[in-house]
């Protein structure tokens, strides 16, 4: 309870005692985690279209949601892949200021998600596997986006992916920010590039809300467990893809080759299963996610 307006004594006391505990236990901000956050957001990091260009011999972009608009923050289309076809859908950021603005910093509006659904359903109709590339700070927070049903656009995309009959693989290539990222990641296999991050909330917002201090972002990043290695440990993702030395931004072509090899390996594996079985296993995988206690036992 605040004693004076703006002074939250209880919070202040716990904050200070936390600090004392931290200093005593030597628990400090681990620079290593923040390095990953910065690499994931590196301005020279390859984006979806860079991967597509390096991975596939041909790509035909398909645009529009047939309902309202074409959202440049999500791109998608048919890609030639070893003499066959794959549907690629991904978040897209811009490289220079003009492109960044046009791509809305990779933050999709509802029409982006509805385009993604259209393309995935099209793929399913013709038995074309789906690859999604995830790289977004989150879904766009705006009035018009809300009015067009941002929540429903995300949930219906999740439902679309839960229902797909074709093999689906997603790769988090940069920032996996919240529901806006997850919307494209309800897949048979979820892979992460080594230096990408995946989180329920950005470290900055998390710090602002829980620590009431956005300067604690580094501590929040560490507490959230958003690195690829930690997420593999938690069994949230199915694999980590190593990046070229120094990070994917150093060598786009090599990063794309690593991604392509992983895609090939996972698809080969997934394609042996019956569609119904594949879907069941996908559901089972997400059903297992979560940790709780029941009758005193901790269950994973």
């Amino acid at each position, binding site marked *: 309870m605040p004693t004076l307006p703006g002074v939250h004594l209880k919070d202040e006391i716990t904050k200070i005692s936390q600090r004392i505990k931290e200093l005593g236990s030597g628990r400090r901000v681990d620079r290593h985690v923040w390095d990953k956050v910065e690499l994931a957001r590196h301005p020279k990091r390859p984006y979806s279209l860079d991967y597509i260009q390096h991975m596939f011999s041909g790509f035909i972009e398909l645009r529009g949601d047939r309902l309202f608009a074409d959202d440049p923050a999500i791109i998608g289309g048919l890609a030639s892949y070893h003499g066959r076809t794959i549907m690629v859908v991904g978040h897209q950021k811009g490289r220079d200021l003009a492109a960044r603005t046009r791509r809305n910093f990779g933050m999709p509006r509802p029409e982006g998600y509805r385009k993604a659904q259209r393309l995935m359903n099209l793929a399913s109709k013709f038995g074309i596997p789906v690859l999604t590339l995830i790289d977004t700070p989150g879904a766009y927070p*705006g009035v018009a986006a*809300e009015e067009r049903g941002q*929540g*429903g656009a995300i*949930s219906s995309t999740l439902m679309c992916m*839960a229902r797909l009959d074709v093999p689906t693989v997603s790769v988090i290539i940069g920032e996996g920010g919240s529901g806006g990222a997850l919307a494209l990641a309800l897949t048979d296999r979820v892979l992460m590039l080594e230096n990408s991050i995946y*989180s329920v*909330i950005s470290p900055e917002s998390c710090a602002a809300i829980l620590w009431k201090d956005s300067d604690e972002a580094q501590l929040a990043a560490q507490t959230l467990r958003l690195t690829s290695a930690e997420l593999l440990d938690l069994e949230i993702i199915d694999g980590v893809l190593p990046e070229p030395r120094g990070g994917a931004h150093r060598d786009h072509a090599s990063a794309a080759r690593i991604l392509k090899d992983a895609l090939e390996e996972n698809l080969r594996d997934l394609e042996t299963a019956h569609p119904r079985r594949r879907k069941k296993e996908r559901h089972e995988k997400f059903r297992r996610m*979560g940790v709780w206690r029941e009758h005193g036992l901790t269950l994973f």
Partner: protein
Amino acid sequence: MAHVSVDISRRNGTPDAVGCPSCKELLNRAELAKNLQVCHHCGHHFRVGARERVGQLADVGTWSEIAGSLRSADPLEFYDLRPYPERIEEAEYDTGLSEAILVGTCKLHKMDVVLAAMDFAFLGGSMGSVVGERFWRAAETAAESRFPLVVVCASGGARMQEGILSLMQMAKTTCAVEMLGEVPVPFVTVLTHPTTGGVMASFATLADVIISEPGALLCFTGPRVIEQTVKEALPEDFGRAESNLAHGQIDMIVSRPELKDRLVQILGMMEGGVACALEPIWEAEARRGRRGGPFAEALKRIKALANPSGRPSKR
């Protein structure tokens, strides 16, 4: 995720009375509870906790809780200003609940349903592993028993203290709804103030029919976050149920006193599809037709065409 400032209206006033935040009238708490926490003067809907909601909806003596023994763990050993288990303990103490969702089976006007109610007072109704698992068990029970699923939502979004695991509950609950759709079992959500963030972007908006209470804030991103991040001026009714209805995001707004009857009507009509045949309609029309008039003449002609032998068809 969206964040909604806690509505402190119920803490204002005296132990027996509370001020209505809308019309400022002082209301007697006992009377307010009797009126389902709706203001007598202006119709303002106060927030209702999960237990009280079940009490309002379920037929007396029919409630049976499911998955009540599930409790949160602390998989990330999360602590911000306070350790997560301490926050959980406090929420348990304050609300008398064991998590932000209460799940069970009951009857609504003798109709069997699986009912779930969320409670905003329990850590902002946030969705963590237990909320996701309880939702799954509710859906599973509904799918097995073929009872419709009704979920009363109230949530600020994901449970940040469970990090990525809380985000994954959106995927998990979506798979649960998909399972319901395969049967199919009717699924109706009642969105109450506030329903935002990860819940709004998963099961809340995946229902066959979406009902809302008047004035409820329903959005993915909360108004404060929008104002701060994109510096957009917000319309006065931003994200409100009425605005969502106008923009085609929900089916209807139903005030609390009418909610139970409306739910039963909707669920009954949805289930009507299974048993629907031409015969009962013909029978009813025939009864009406015997009363004479131009309708009866037309019906007789149609019947003669459909059934030339003159005998009533028995399928």
